[in-house]
C-alpha cells in the first residue's frame, strides 16, 4: 500500500475492517476493558504505527478504530472545531477504512473523537467520547521518573501533587492550572483528563457517557465509565473553579453558556466565539 494512495483515495478497502489488524484490535480492546474496570488507571498497550505521526492523535485513533462498527456515525473535533485540518483528515480516514458515517452534530454521532474539548451538548449513554491524550501521567509535573509515578499511583501516595497545588496557592494566590487539571477518579487514582480546559472537567463527573482516553506516543489507555465520580483536586478554602466568561457572549450565535475562544481582530478589538463550532452552527440554524 503506497502512501500516495491514501492521499488520493485510490484505495477502496484496507485488508481488514477499520485499518487495524485483528490482533491489534484485540490488544486495544483488552486494554479498554481493563481501563473501564479500574477507572482512572493507566493501562499499557502496544501502540501501533498509524498513518499519522505520534502525538497527532494516534492514541485516540487506535481506540476509535478498535471499537468502530460499520453502522457507526463519527464526529471528530480538534479544539472544539469540526473543520480543522487534523479533524478533517481523521474523519476522512475513518470514512475510508471503516465506511462509517460522518457528522458534525454531536447529537447524531455514536462515537465522538476529540482533542482538547468535550462537546457543549450533554452526551448520552449510547454515545462514546474518545479523547486524544498527549501526556497521560498527571504526576509527571512533580515526578520525572515513570517508575516513581507508578509506585505513587500504586500506593495512592499523592501528597506531592497536592503540595504542588499548595505551593501554587501560597505563591500566586490561586491554582494556576488552566488545562490538564488533575482529578481524582472514583476516589482512588489521580488522572490527567487530557488537555481539556477547566470548563470541561465537571462534564466528566457522573456523566451518562463512557469516556475513553488514548495516548499513542506514551502507550497508555485509561477510562472513566459512566456514573463515576471525577473530582478535581481542590482545597476546602480554595475551590476548583471553571473559566469565567461573565459578560461575554459568542459574537456569532450569542451563546452565554459556552466555552469561548478569544479572537483578536486586525483593528485591535477582541471578539469571542464558541469554541465548539458544531454547537454554534446548530444554534444558528
Amino acid at each position, binding site marked *: 500500500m503506497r502512501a500516495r494512495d491514501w492521499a488520493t483515495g485510490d484505495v477502496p478497502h484496507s485488508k481488514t475492517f477499520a485499518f487495524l489488524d485483528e490482533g491489534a484490535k484485540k490488544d486495544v480492546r483488552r486494554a479498554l476493558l481493563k481501563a473501564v474496570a479500574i477507572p482512572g488507571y493507566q493501562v499499557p498497550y502496544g501502540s501501533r504505527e498509524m498513518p499519522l505521526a505520534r502525538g497527532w492523535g494516534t492514541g485516540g485513533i487506535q481506540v476509535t478504530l478498535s471499537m468502530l462498527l460499520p453502522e457507526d456515525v463519527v464526529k471528530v473535533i480538534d479544539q472544539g472545531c469540526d473543520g480543522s485540518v487534523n479533524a478533517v483528515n481523521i474523519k476522512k480516514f475513518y470514512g475510508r477504512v471503516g465506511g462509517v458515517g460522518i457528522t458534525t452534530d454531536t447529537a447524531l454521532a455514536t462515537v465522538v473523537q476529540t482533542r482538547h474539548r468535550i462537546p457543549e451538548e450533554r452526551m448520552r449513554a449510547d454515545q462514546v467520547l474518545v479523547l486524544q491524550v498527549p501526556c497521560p501521567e498527571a504526576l509527571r509535573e512533580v515526578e520525572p521518573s515513570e517508575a516513581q509515578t507508578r509506585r505513587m499511583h500504586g500506593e495512592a*501516595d499523592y*501528597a506531592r501533587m497536592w503540595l504542588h497545588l*499548595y505551593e501554587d496557592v501560597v505563591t500566586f494566590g490561586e491554582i494556576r492550572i488552566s488545562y490538564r487539571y488533575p482529578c481524582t477518579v472514583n476516589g482512588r487514582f489521580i488522572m490527567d483528563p487530557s488537555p481539556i480546559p477547566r470548563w470541561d472537567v465537571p462534564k466528566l463527573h457522573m456523566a451518562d457517557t463512557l469516556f475513553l482516553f488514548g495516548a499513542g506516543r506514551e502507550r497508555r489507555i485509561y477510562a472513566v465509565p459512566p456514573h463515576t465520580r471525577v473530582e478535581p483536586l481542590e482545597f476546602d478554602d480554595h475551590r476548583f473553579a471553571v473559566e469565567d466568561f461573565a459578560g461575554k457572549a459568542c459574537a456569532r450565535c450569542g451563546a452565554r453558556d459556552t466555552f469561548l475562544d478569544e479572537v483578536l481582530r486586525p483593528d485591535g478589538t477582541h471578539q469571542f466565539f464558541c469554541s465548539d463550532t458544531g454547537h454554534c452552527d446548530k444554534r444558528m440554524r
Partner: protein
Amino acid sequence: MEPLLRAHGLTKRFGPGCPACLESTGAEAGSNRCPHCGTVWACRDVSFVLHREEALGIVGESGSGKSTLVRMLHFDWDSTSGFLEAARIPALAEALPDLYPDGSPWSRNLLALDRFRQRKARDAGMGIVYQHPQLGLRMGVSSGGNIAERLLSAGWRSIGAMRARSASLLERTEIPVSRMDEPPRNFSGGMQQRVQIAKALSGDPPLLLLDEVTTGLDLSVQARVLDLVRALREELKLSMLVVSHDLGVINLLCQRTMVMKNGQVVEAGLTDQILQDPQHGYTQLLVASQLQ
C-alpha cells in the same frame, strides 16, 4: 514505664547470604561483609524496646548499621527480616483500624504491612530528622510547604489550617514566621535542621527519629539544636530514637543507649553506666576516644 515500640531481630542484608555468613561477619569477625559470598549484613538481629517518653541512643562508628536501623524503622528501606510492633496508640489505631488484632495491646508486625499502610503508620506515628537536610526537605519548595506535605499526606485539605499549623511549628523551632514561604535552600544549615524538626513534628507524632541531627553543624548551632530537641521532648512528651556517633549528644539526650558495631548491638544499658563503665572492648575504645 510503659513500652511504646518493640523490635525483634531486625535484619538488613545486601546480597544472597551463605552458610558461612553467620560466623564470618559481625562484631566478633570485625566486618559486616562476608568474605565468602560478598554479602553485606548492614544490620543483624537487632532487638530493643522503646518506652514512652524515653530517649534511646544508638552509637557506633560509621558503617555500624545505625542509619540502616533508622531507615528500616521509618520504612524507607525494606527489612530482610524482623518484627516491629507498636503499642496501642490512639492516632495509629485511628489511621489503621485493622492494625491491632482483637483488643491486643500490640500491633501486627509493622514491617510486614504493605507500603500504603506503612505510609499511614508513618504519618500517624513518627517523624524523622535526617543528618542531611536535603534528605528530609524539598529544597525548592517553601518551608511552609515542606511542613504541609506531611499534613497533606495525612489528609489535611485546608490551606488556612495547614498554614496556621506550619506557622506555629516554625515559631516553636525558632524560625521567623515571615520566612515561611521561602525555600529551605535560602537558609543556613542550622535553620534547615530546625525546619526539618518542624516538619517531623507536623503530624504530632509520639515518636521522633533523629539521625545524626547535629553532625556537620558548628558547635554553637549544635547546642541550639540540642536545646530545642530537649525542650520539645519535655513539652510534647516525645519518645525518641537518637542515632549519633557523638557520645556527647547521646549523654545529653538519652537515658538508655545501645552500642552498635558491624551491624550488631554489642552493648546496651543505661547511658551513664555505658559511659562510665563500658564493658565491651569496642565501647571502651569509643569512650576513650572522646575528646575531652
